[in-house]
């Protein structure tokens, strides 16, 4: 909203793929007269309005809240998941980050476990299946005690919150050279493992979720830490260490 917003022109190289079966290719477009106060997705809107007016198929991309919280948006821009700015989702990335005349290469989050469905849209249902394999506390509606009967040490509560702030966007997978989902899964495991309510199912949960993660075809973690750097919510790799400890412990104690 700076009083005199500057307009810039950009060259886009965008991944186009009709559907999951299609091979896909890069196409080039010009994004002209883009207001630097616009967001990255608003820039794509402008390009798409232009394409529609020319009778061309607009670029498909996922988005919903445009506030950096639903985890729906995401693409790799010039090699960075969610673009070059740290701790920022694509929808919250503003065009003042870029300069006039720059070329932007825009690709979907790629990974074997997240197949492309069209252009920049990928299938992240693997994440839902990981959660269904234990990412919950088994309480029935109504059969619970008063909330303040479960005091939680503030430090644990804060750490649990930090882990729970994951938005499930899959940037961590896209950023990882091995396409590992460890940051996502460990954030989910940690959120509940850090709370007293999560203790009864702690072992069962980590075993189930890790098993499903492997089944989905995500890669292994080799401590590259690219995931943490790409995470728009700044989820810490310490969660991975915590999950590994929990997993080892659970494996050990579950052998009977």
């Amino acid at each position, binding site marked *: 909203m700076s009083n005199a917003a500057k307009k810039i022109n950009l060259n886009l190289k965008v991944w186009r793929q009709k559907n999951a079966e299609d091979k896909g290719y890069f196409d080039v477009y010009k994004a002209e007269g*883009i207001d630097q106060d616009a967001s990255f997705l608003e820039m794509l809107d402008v390009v798409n309005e232009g394409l529609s007016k020319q009778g061309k198929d607009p670029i498909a991309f996922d988005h919903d809240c445009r*506030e950096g*919280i639903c985890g729906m948006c995401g693409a790799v821009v010039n090699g960075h998941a969610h673009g070059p700015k740290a701790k920022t989702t694509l929808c919250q990335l503003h065009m003042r980050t870029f300069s006039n005349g720059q070329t932007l290469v825009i690709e979907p989050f790629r990974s074997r476990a997240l197949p492309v469905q069209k252009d920049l849209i990928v299938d992240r249902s693997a994440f839902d299946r990981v959660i269904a394999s234990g990412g919950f506390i088994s309480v029935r509606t109504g059969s619970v*005690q008063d909330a303040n009967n479960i005091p939680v040490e503030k430090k644990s509560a804060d750490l649990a919150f930090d882990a729970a702030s994951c938005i499930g966007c899959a940037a961590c997978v896209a950023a990882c050279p091995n396409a590992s989902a460890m940051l996502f899964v460990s954030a989910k495991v940690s959120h509940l493992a850090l*709370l007293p309510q999560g203790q009864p199912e702690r072992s069962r949960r980590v075993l189930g979720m890790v098993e499903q993660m492997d089944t989905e075809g995500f890669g292994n973690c080799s401590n590259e830490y690219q995931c943490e750097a790409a995470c728009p919510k700044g989820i810490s790799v310490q969660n991975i260490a915590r999950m590994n400890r929990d997993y080892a412990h659970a494996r050990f104690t579950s052998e009977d």
Partner: protein
Amino acid sequence: MSKQLESHIPEGPVKDKWTKAKFENKLVNPANKRKFKVLVVGTGLAGASAAATLSELGYQVQSFCFQDSPRRAHSIAAQGGINAAKNYQGDGDSVHRLFYDTVKGGDFRSREANVHRLAEVSSNIVDQCVAQGVPFAREYGGLLDNRSFGGAQVSRTFYAKGQTGQQLLIGAYSALMKEVSTGSVELFTRREMLELVVIDGKARGIIVRNLITGGMETYMGDAVMLCTGGYGNVFYLSTNAMGSNVTATWRAHKKGAYFANPCYTQIHPTCIPVHGEYQSKLTLMSESLRNDGRVWVPEAKNDKRKASDIPEEERDYYLERKYPSFGNLVPRDIASRNAKYVCDEGKGVGATGLAVYLDFSDSIKRLGQKTIENRYGNLFDMYEQITGSSPYEEPMMIYPAVHYTMGGLWVDYNLMTSIPGLFCLGEANFSDHGANRLGASALMQGLSDGYFVAPYTLGNYLAQQDLAQVDATHPDAVKALSSAQERIDKLLAIKGERTVDDFHKELGLLLWDKCGMSRNEAGLKEALVKIPKIRDEFWENVNVMGSPGELNQTLEKAGRVADFLEFGELMVKDALERKESCGGHFREESQTEGGEALRDDENFAHVAAWEFNGVGEVPILHKEALIFENVALAQRSYK
């Protein structure tokens, strides 16, 4: 012409009604529950909590959403918090006070019985969420922290930093996924409901489009629950997620479900102002900011000086001046309207003159930057990210934006619409907020409906039915499917010149202008002439690219805009019909000398429930009288 709607509110004192209803409700035998299938559309707080709970009870559940995961429903974006009458702070809160505040805050246009039930179950909601692992803010002693929110005079709001919605939704989503893991909930993501199937007058199924393949699919069941959120995006620019729409409820309306109070929309006072043509949405800045920020504009018109160059005595802290006892914390509708007034007078700030300052410099001086950073750090960062200006250094600029819709499908006390077997929960129904919703009450209502109300009332309905076996080959299902298909084919065949967004913007601007923060007869009548014209042109001249059998986002949008173009007309009609001002509905013809909303209880203490009568035809108005036995009708005063 108007008939009395049967709201099925139980007899007896308000505080006993829900207990009585729960006892008198018919129960479905546990062994029979698994024979019933319930289709739950929507996976926000209302839908996810309902689907999870119904499945726990033993029903077969199918759950639908248009996003790629249930966890992405628009509820995820809620920032501020959720109310509950826990009185953990010992500051005098109670079920009765929450009930009272909500009825008064809604400007006496909600049902007492519903609001009381909401206040009663509010405590259970927080218990439930904590048990699921929702990481609410805590004090050093390990107990839950609260804040005062949205002008409430007690601290009853539970929160999780600035992302309460995401944390509550992850709680409800995890409960849902727990049921998915047992196989008793079947999940259908990336599905958009396009039609309701009504058989023998009862809701028995839905037609959805698979957004990945483009294929049309029919799902049949014994009851349908619409938990599809609000219609704020009819205005094009709003704080809602881009996909939020009226399609599911509108298509149900066209099949016979009455639409109640469509003109009640909430304009939130603290949003980042509009700044460009390209803009796709407006960003909310949490209302909690008004706890420490002071709202002002320059005294002089068209004052282009920088905020810091305007001396104290040349500033107008208009909320503090006009409402000394509530000051910056007046309810949303009042704060928004006053921002409009000062901008209309030419005192607005920023490039467009459509903004007012929200200034933290006094609080920073008084409390220190550290404290302000702890309270609002993430919001300040977000503001800076979007606008490029730091609220620590310069006052924020804010302006009202469409935020929430109190109107929705008419439901009885049991949350059932006027179509038997069709229930409606969460923001999609009209039930609890009257003409203005209080902060932190939507999350409460969504979870109340889904966890604690619908699971009881659904049983009561099913226990009394003798439903015929039906499947997707039933002629009414086949007809619904082909009518959805025809509409899609029609959209794709137009191949006109204008884009879908172009029409959406035109409609949105018109509504914002004529049916936004302030409404009058002439403006509304003008809109009633213009909307059908825009709609006609849309159906002749819109350009929808691509084919039906593929992922086609333009087609998705076109279907939603087509529905907004029909719905918008009803909204304006409702606003015209309601000649009084109340809450978020401000009719210029009906105001006090001081410019406040003036209700007309004699003629308008009712719910306006509209019956569909054909596109462009005059809808039929049914009135449900509102009776106030526990809260005395009074002119709201926040002076």
